[in-house]
């Protein structure tokens, strides 16, 4: 995996700072411009033709304004926030674990969310007495609680957050274990397979203004402590001993950042299901384009992740409209291809 550059901090070197700063500014501006462009495009792309959508924009009636302002706009804004949270969570994961392949779901949150959703679907389907609570939660609540429970289980298994290797291992174990339970449950009730599949492949279709509100608040709540602790991540990238010798309290740093990571991932999973690759690719895209320290990365990765998921959402609803592709399938395809190209280019350079 040496082909991928780890999250190396470029500690403030005045010689390069100005150059990097302007490149970064240009890059961030480009991200914002793309986001604005995609947001505008999202008003025109849906189940109707471009001309019809344009007509709706110019002469809205009751129904078309519902579609434009209650469905399309919150969907695309919500997709941005979800992508931003994934980008942020990915950048944090790669920094905390000092591993360029770390991604938001590595503590078992995705499998936990899937199990939660399965329980809720089974309960809704069969009105099982003992599971009635899971049915009432709905998919969103069940996913969020499942994700949190899985992360808690991972941290318990690794006896805290200090040992990177055992945390990663515990995450893998928990993910496998919970997936196995999910599969066994699904076997007993094949009717919920399709709904489950829809969740596993991500779904931006039902994002409303209230989801946008929730995602927005969580984004700010996650971004602030992450940026405040970015210096710690820079120090951590030089090694745990160095970080400690610089006077950092590793337990506090890691616990806070993993808390942020968990909150961001669980909220996103609850709202849009499991969307792969955005959290992994967004930080890489930032580092590929500009050399950054962690503060810049923690701002750049969300901007990039947001635009990525927005674009994937547009593709998913446009390519076979009025039907749509699962958004996670789009991100996985694009993200997978990107990583292959990245690996190939690196191998050639070395």
């Amino acid at each position, binding site marked *: 995996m040496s082909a991928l550059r780890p999250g190396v901090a470029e500690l403030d070197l005045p010689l390069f700072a100005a150059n990097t700063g302007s490149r970064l500014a240009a890059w961030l501006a480009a991200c914002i411009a793309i986001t604005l462009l995609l947001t505008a495009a999202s008003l025109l792309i*849906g*189940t*109707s033709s471009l001309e019809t959508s344009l007509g709706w924009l110019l002469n809205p009636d*009751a*129904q078309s304004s*519902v*579609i434009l302002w*209650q*469905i*399309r706009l*919150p*969907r695309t804004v919500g997709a941005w926030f979800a992508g931003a949270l994934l980008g942020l969570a990915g950048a944090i994961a790669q920094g905390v674990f000092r591993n360029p392949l770390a991604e938001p779901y590595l503590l078992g949150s995705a499998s936990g969310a899937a199990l939660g959703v399965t329980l809720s679907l089974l309960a*809704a*389907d*069969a*009105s099982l007495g003992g599971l009635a609570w899971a*049915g009432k939660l*709905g*998919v969103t609540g069940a996913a969020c609680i499942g994700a949190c429970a899985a992360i808690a289980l991972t941290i318990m298994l690794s006896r805290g957050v200090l040992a990177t290797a055992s945390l990663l291992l515990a995450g893998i174990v928990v993910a496998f274990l919970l997936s196995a339970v999910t599969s066994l449950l699904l*076997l007993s009730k*094949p009717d*919920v397979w*399709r*709904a489950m*599949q*829809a969740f596993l492949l991500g*779904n931006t*279709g*039902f*994002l*409303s*203004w209230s989801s946008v509100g929730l995602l927005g608040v969580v984004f700010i709540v996650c971004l602030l402590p992450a940026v405040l602790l970015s210096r710690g991540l820079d120090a951590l990238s030089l090694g745990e001993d160095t970080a400690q010798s610089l006077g950092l309290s590793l337990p506090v740093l890691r616990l806070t950042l993993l808390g942020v990571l968990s909150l961001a991932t669980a909220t996103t999973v609850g709202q849009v299901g499991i969307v792969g690759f955005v959290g992994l690719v967004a930080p890489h895209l930032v580092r590929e384009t500009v050399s950054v320290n962690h503060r810049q990365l923690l701002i750049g990765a969300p901007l990039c992740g947001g635009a990525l998921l927005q674009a994937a959402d547009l593709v998913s*609803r446009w390519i076979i*409209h*009025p*039907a*749509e*592709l*699962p958004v996670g399938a789009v991100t996985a395809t694009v993200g997978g291809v990107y990583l292959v190209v990245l690996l190939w280019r690196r191998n050639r350079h070395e």
Partner: protein
Amino acid sequence: MTILDARANAIRAAALRAAALLALAWATAAQANVVRDDLGRDVRFDHPPLRVIALLPSITETVCALDACDRLVATDRYSNWPPQVKALPKAGGLDDAEIELIVSLKPDLVLLSRSQRITDRLGDLGIKTFALNSDRYSDIAHNIRVIGEILGLDERARGLSESIAADVQSIAAGAHRAHSGRAPSVYFEVDTAPYAAGPASFIGELLTRLGAHNIVSSDLGAFPKLNPEYVVQHNPDVIFVSGTEAGHLAARPGWATIRAVREQRFCSFSAEVDDTIVRPGPRVADGMRALADCLERVSP
């Protein structure tokens, strides 16, 4: 009785036995039945099978509707009708059939759906399989005829098919009368992704027969994953949705403006009734009646 007489008797008896054997062989040959299955294979039946395993609920139901339930020695785990099949051994699901159990039951025929991987495996083990499609309305009559032919119950099959067709026709005619000219537009949600049942699906075919207008166009396929705004845009009169989900529809962005949601025009069915709606089998008239009753009750 002389020795000669005895010999003549013996010869006569032997000749008679030979003639009887020949006649039996001829009769068997005349009965040997070659039937083409939905994989395009010609399957030969020297005598009607007496130990049958059905690996699809609609096929189990068809066998039983032909009064041949007593020939079943096992079913798949989802077959639950008629009630007596619940007591039979369960040989797994559609794609994870229990080969060992099937072999140990020594069936002389396994009826299964076309997509099943186990057809080859069972064939290798010397077990006769017969594959049937069971996704469309037209598969019902076809499967009744073919299974009747294999089981030697042609007459019964013909009667069953005719009575189902008559029931379906009368329910459809009643439904058309009920909404006299103004076809209600309907959206059938298979699950919350949202996947819809299009006109090309079995459920969609039933709705079309009832004169309902499906908001999903047929070019989208049997069960398309819709962009939710499609449903808002097409504003259906009636929504078929699970009972638990019906209460949540108004919370989906923009859906509170849909007529069916505004006026609470929902159709939800119990799991038992659902089985008759989603299985292309001999209980299709029951399923259609459930759909028609609800449409009549809630249509504007």
